[in-house]
Structure formats: C-alpha cells, structure tokens
C-alpha cells in the first residue's frame, strides 16, 4: 500500500518533470519566436495584427496565473468563439469581409491556446458534381487555413476535411438552402 502510493507519487513527480521539461523547452522556443515576431511587428509599426498578437500572448500568461483581473476581450480568448461557421458565395473560396471578424476571433483563440486543435470542414451546395464539389469544399477550408496561418496560427493546430456536398446543413434546392450549405465549419 505504502509502496504503491510511493510509486504513484514518484510516477506523478516524474511525469510532472517531463511536462515541465517539455513545456520549458517549448516555452523557450516559443518565446524566442514570439519575441522575434513582436520585434518585427514593432519594427514595422503598430499594425492591428501585431498588437493583437502580443495581446494574446499576454492573455495566455495571465489566464494561467489568475482568471480574474483580465478584461472581457482577453477573457474571450480563453473560450472557443461561439460563431463557428462562415459562409461563401457560389463557386467562390474568398472569405467575405462580413466573416473576417469570425475568423479573426478563431485566430486569437488558437494563438492564445497553442494546444487547441481545430478541424476546418469545407462544404458546398448540392449543385455540380460530387467529386468536383469535394475539391471546392477543400479549397474553401484551405482559404480559411491560410488566413489563420497568416494571422499567426500554427499549421500544426489546423487540419482540413472537405465534405463537398455530402453533409448539407439545410435541405432544399433553393438559394436559401444553398447559401446555408456553402460554408466552412470550425470544429474543435
């Protein structure tokens, strides 16, 4: 019994040291990278994305020490954004300006939670052939992935699955159904 708990204690201590070791090396590398990013960001001036990058890393640190005391905006970055679907025009993979804020919110969340993983599901409406639509759905999801990557999200946090027209969100063969089906879903 005693030996058992000793063993368990040792195991716990050992795993903590491994985690600490991993996170410390990871942290060192991470801070090097973010440091250089911040450096270049401040070199190039106070761009909006540069500001939000540094803001995010701050939130992550303060969030881990104490939950209270951070602003509402910073708090939001510790939660998965509630809007998880963006919509596209027919036959297009361009992220519409009205959905950029949604994608930006996911970018902030993913940057501040480097262990978070998201799968980007690409979808199309039912028109056209199924296999071609699989490719179109992937193109949409890839466009979102590129956007997130430019916003500083690591590609290792993101994967893409295209469903083409196979998983419609709405039934029906009219524009109202079509417009709900041409989408990319953020799946955490």
């Amino acid at each position, binding site marked *: 019994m005693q030996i058992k708990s000793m063993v368990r204690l040792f195991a716990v201590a050992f795993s903590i040291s491994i985690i600490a070791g991993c996170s410390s090396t990871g942290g060192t590398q991470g801070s090097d990278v973010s440091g250089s990013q911040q450096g270049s960001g401040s070199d190039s001036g106070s761009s909006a994305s540069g500001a939000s990058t540094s803001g995010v890393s701050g939130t992550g640190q303060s969030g881990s020490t104490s939950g209270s005391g951070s602003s509402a905006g910073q708090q939001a970055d510790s939660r998965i954004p509630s809007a998880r679907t963006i919509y596209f025009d027919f036959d297009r993979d361009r992220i519409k300006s009205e959905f950029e804020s949604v994608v930006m919110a996911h970018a902030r969340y993913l940057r501040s939670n480097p262990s978070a993983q998201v799968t980007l599901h690409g979808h199309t409406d039912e028109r056209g052939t199924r296999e*071609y639509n699989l490719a179109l759905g*992937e193109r949409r999801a890839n466009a979102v992935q590129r956007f997130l990557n430019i916003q500083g999200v690591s590609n290792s946090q993101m994967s893409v699955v295209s469903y083409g027209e196979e998983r419609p969100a709405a039934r029906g063969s009219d524009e109202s159904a079509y417009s709900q089906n041409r989408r990319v879903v953020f799946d955490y």
Partner: protein
Amino acid sequence: MPMIRRIGILLALCLLSSTANANLTIEITRGSDRALPIGVVPFEQASNASEDVAQIIQDDLERSGYFEPLERDAMFEQPTRADDVAFGPWRSLDVRYLVVGNVDETADGVEVTAALMDISGQRRMLTERVTTQKDDLRSAAHYLSDQIFEAITDIRGAFSTRIAYVTANGVGDDIQFALHVADSDGRNSQEILSSDQPILSPAWSPDGEKLAYVSFESGRPAIYVQQVTSGQRVELTSFEGINSAPSWSPDGRRLAMSLSKDGQPEIYIMNLADRSLTRITNNSSIDTEPSWAPDGRSLLFTSDRSGGPQIYRHSLTGQETQRLTFTGNYNARGRFSPDGDAIFLIHRTDSGYQVARQDLSSDRLVVLSDSSQDESPSVAPNGTMVIFATQRGGSGVLSAVSADGRSSFRLPSPQGDVREPAWSPFMD
C-alpha cells in the same frame, strides 16, 4: 456452364442476405418513337411461380427504349410454344416480334425455354433454354432478355448486369449512408456497407467482383476496395486531404484517383500490385474525376485550369493533355462510351446541370436529360443507356436515358435519397 454460374450468384446472395427490401421500381418516363413493337406472351408456368418470367422480359425490353411491348389484353391468343404461333393475326396487330416460352420444373430446379419469332419474316429467330434454381427465375429472365435483345438489335444485352448506388437518409449531423448493389432493374437490392459518414464514388472493377469507393468512416475521405460477394475489403489510400474518384483501368491492375496530398487535387494512377503512385497532373488547379478510356491508353478528367470545370483527355502513351469540352462554362465528370467514340458528362445549361453526350469526331454536344440537377452519369456496358442521379420532389432518385436521348426511365426509391449510381460491367 450457366447453371454453375447461377449457383454461384445464388450463394453470393445468401452470403449477403441483408433483408431490407428497398428495391427500386422502374417508371418509364419517355418512350422512343423508334421503338419496335414486340409481344411477350405470358409463359406457361406453374400458377404459384414466384416470378412472372414474361413480365420481367417485357419490362427489360421496354426499359431499353428499343421496344414497345404489346399490352397483354390486346393478345387475341397466348401461345407458349413456337410451333403454335400463327403469324398472320399477329402481323395484323403490327407486332414485329413475338416471344413465347414455358417454365418446367425438373428434379433439381427449373428449365426455362423461350423462342423469339420474327412475325414479318414468319420464322423462328432464336430458341433458348436455361436451367436454374426455382428461386432464381429473375436471373433466367434477364439472361433471356439479353439473348432476345442481341438477336434483334445486334447489340449485346445488358439486362443481367447490376448497379451500385448510395442511399442517404436524414439531415445535418444525423444522416445514415449506405452502399447497395441491385440488379439492373433495381430489384434484388443488397446493402453492402452502411455508415453515419458519407459514402460516394462507387466504381466497379472490370471483372465485376469488386467495388472501389470513397468512405468518410474514419472521419476523412479514404478509398476502399471491397469484394462484392464476401464483403472483404481493404483501405487503399488515406493520404492527407482528399482521396477521391477511384476509376479502374480496363485491365483491373491500376486505379486512377484524385489526391490532394500535395496541396491541391491532382490525378494519380496507383499500381494495385505494389500500391506505387504515378502523378499525372501537376498544376495549381482542381484536377479530379478521372475515367479510363476503354482501350486503357488515355484518361478523361475534370480540371478548372481554364477558370471553370472542363473535361480534358490525357494520353498515357504520349503524355499530352488536350481539352475536349468548349460548349458552356461547366462540363464535368466525363465517362467514355464503351466504343470510345463519345463521352457522357454533366453539362450546365440555362436550366441547370444535365446529362449530355459529346461525340468525339464532331465535338458536337447534345443534352440528353430533361431534368435539371443531374449528377454522376454511368454508362451501361453495352453503351445503350446512361444511368445518373437527379432530384425529384425534393429527393434524390436514379434516372436513366438512352444514349440517343430518345427514351428514359426512372428508379424512384421507396424512401430517402438515392444517388451515385454505377453500372456494372458485363458479368461473365
């Protein structure tokens, strides 16, 4: 020989024996004005027989669009043996051909005999005798339809072939998908795979024994190959990104497919013996929907390299790629006719997405269907019909149109969406 083969089919059905009676039923939607008048007289068979052999033959012949069967109640007499056919009265009914026959029970099954009479020529064109099991009369009837069809048209009959298709029931996150195989008339349907994740792109191996298809059951698209009778299967590809659109080479040794593992969908050919891949296309556009030419020397595929989807032909001998379609701004999923002289495809018109045929000698494109949300054309192995998926009343249904567009039929499903039809090769 046919006896042995039929026993083989019977065993296969026992192995599969999923019960769901989700047979598709045929509705003729357009009859050809060139259809030949034929009478298929009810066969002499036991009153408690499970199947009406003459009716199956009549339905086969009518569905082909080549024949216009005479109604039974218009038959002034119903001979069942060739020697009993009086040519004169049938001729006055404008009947060109007459089929008569009988079903006899034997010690170990049944023997079906049929004769085809040429009414205007006043001669017997064909006598066929098939030995089979009592509960396999449908196969015998389809076999007789094949012989009758070929005797009259000089085109090999494709009634004994099968179709694979996918069904989907439900909406949103709660859709149940299933892959089925059925006789070419929609009967004897068997579910061979079901999943709560999408299944698409079934493709028959040239020997008719295997189906390649795409399944998302692992959470991502992967290509599988499944033995139709045993259900045994392997996962063939599961690369990062899209694994889709499998198409068998005519010799069955290679599989063309579209993979996006290198960034965007490209056409590859996999050698099935060692699973080595040869990349065929290489550009920043979508390249998908490969399909082999009957001679195995070239591939069709869809590419949007010109801005929108168009069909291209890649020569495997000369390694050249040539654009084939120039009519309209959406042409996709091309499939060769068995003689290689034409392609069938999905073409966008003002009314929507329709099945079309393009003759390769003239490059003339002709729309064949009168529906507007067509997908997945698949050509019968004798080239006479194209089966495809379309929408009717808010549901996916299978439809077929003759290669000349003159006749068509529909196979509505009792429930849910039916899609992704794939017509099998000849089963021999």
